[in-house]
């Protein structure tokens, strides 16, 4: 990136904050509807000091991690089964597509009934959000494997578990990563949505607290935190993983 472009970016962000501050100082809208960046910053600062912010982040991230891990493992297993066993695809496969089109928050009411107001319930919603994206991409990935790869591996004696771990999964890996990326995005939506509805710790809960206290600066500060976590996870984890795999496959 050129200096010029970094400069532009900094100028732009400074400009946004400045315009925001000016707009809110102008009192066109009441502070309760349109807080100033100073208010938002203060809210973040207090949250950081009294620990609520860190506890909230930690709770949400642990739920995301747990849900995503289950979804990734389950999604890969289900996707491979669908791709390799015709009957599974013709039966479960058709529901997976349907389930994928259910917004993850829509699972929250059911999760509350089935799991109560527990971490398990929120993790269930996260899994419901992430699972099918991983499944569908794994399925596509395994289906797109050059059949010669599989034939060659079988010819060299690979079967069963070895075929899965040494050929199917690595061969479908570029697709798996797409699935992970989509899955994490949906899972993250699931965590926040479930926390909003369960109102049981986490960033979504803090957002809800802001809402219930009509505290817009808390709402905005939590949105900023959620956004930054999103950018960091996407950029640091998934983007890197993708770049690495793409480089190894010679696609970049």
């Amino acid at each position, binding site marked *: 990136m050129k200096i010029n472009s970094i400069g532009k970016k900094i100028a732009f962000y400074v400009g946004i904050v400045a315009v925001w501050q000016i707009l809110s100082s102008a009192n066109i809208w009441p502070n309760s509807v349109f807080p100033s960046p100073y208010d938002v910053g203060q809210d973040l600062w207090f949250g950081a000091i009294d620990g609520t912010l860190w506890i909230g982040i930690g709770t949400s991230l642990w739920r995301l991690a747990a849900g995503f891990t289950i979804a990734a493992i389950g999604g890969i297993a289900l996707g491979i089964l669908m791709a390799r066993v015709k009957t599974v695809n013709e039966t479960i496969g058709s529901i997976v597509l349907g389930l994928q089109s259910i917004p993850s928050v829509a699972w929250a009411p059911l999760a509350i009934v089935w799991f109560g107001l527990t971490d398990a319930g929120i993790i269930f919603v996260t899994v419901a959000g992430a699972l099918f994206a991983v499944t569908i991409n794994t399925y596509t990935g395994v289906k797109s494997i050059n059949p010669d790869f599989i034939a060659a591996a079988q010819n060299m004696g690979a079967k069963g578990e070895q075929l899965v771990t040494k050929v199917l999964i690595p061969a479908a890996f570029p697709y798996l990563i797409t699935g992970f990326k989509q899955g994490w995005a949906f899972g993250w939506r699931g965590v926040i949505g479930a926390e909003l509805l369960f109102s049981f710790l986490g960033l979504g809960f803090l957002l809800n*607290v802001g809402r219930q206290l009509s505290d817009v600066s808390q709402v905005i500060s939590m949105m900023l935190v959620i956004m930054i976590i999103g950018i960091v996870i996407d950029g640091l984890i998934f983007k890197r993983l993708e770049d690495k795999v793409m480089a190894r496959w010679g696609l970049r």
Partner: protein
Amino acid sequence: SPSESDKNQVRVVFFANISHAVPIVGIENGYFADQLGDTQIKTRIVDSGPEAIEALFANSADLAYAGPAPFVNGYVKSGGQGIKILSGAAFNGASFVVQPDSGIVQPSDLAGKKIAAPFVGNTQDVSLRNYLTQNGLQSAEKGGNVIIYNIANAEINTIFAKKEIDAAWVPEPTATMLVDNLGGKRLFQEQDLWPNKKFPSVVLIGRADYIQKHPDIVQKWLVANQQAINWINQNPDQTESIYIKFYKIHTGKTLKPNIVHDSFSNIVYSSDIDAKSIKIFAERAYSLGYLGRNGYNLDDIYAKAAEASPWQN
């Protein structure tokens, strides 16, 4: 939208709790309609104080019956400009109910427990959190070991039945339902913790600009409000059956008369405004961090109409 508030109408929100018998009876007995004449009355049932405040802020409602804690919160958040208090409506009617087998007999037993209260910033929520702090406990989101669930009363009922929570700080009739239907133990009534065994639980509040624009409508509403209070105090039995009918229509569920009766007897209906207790709620909310960190002032909480009201003591 501005055109909504110019119309000849009043939009009122309240809860399906029995402590909201005033608006329920006032509508059922036609007091509001009689007073307001051709002014249209639109009512909406909400679940919680925060929702009521949200409706006022969003200009989706003009008047609301809500607890003092959400009122104070909304008042401070709007810089003392958005909403005003018009009248009292009910006192008392909240209890701390514990699971019979939870072993909770004193405050220190609450460590590590799961407790429900309706919605953050709601009157019971403020009382519960204040109670915990005073007894040296802290909620989980602040790093403590008491988990507080802020959820609707109906859901509290459900998860209490499933024993997913150890205790609940809830208004009537939920409190009595937990006791009578689910074998919960009423550890204390909230009024036991207050001086004079009395605290405001429902107040009538309104949007400041609506009150200013329609002093006549507000004045008439206050008259009908008092009529309803008087009638309730004179006809407790009929009030109970009106409430049962209302509850059935609104939620589709039938309440047992004895529950309604027990709940009802825990509540005092009055238009008094207990300024001192409202200040206490404000102090508690502030120390919980609900009102920001930059101080607050309650100098201007009364509407002009309320000050002029003949029922103001």
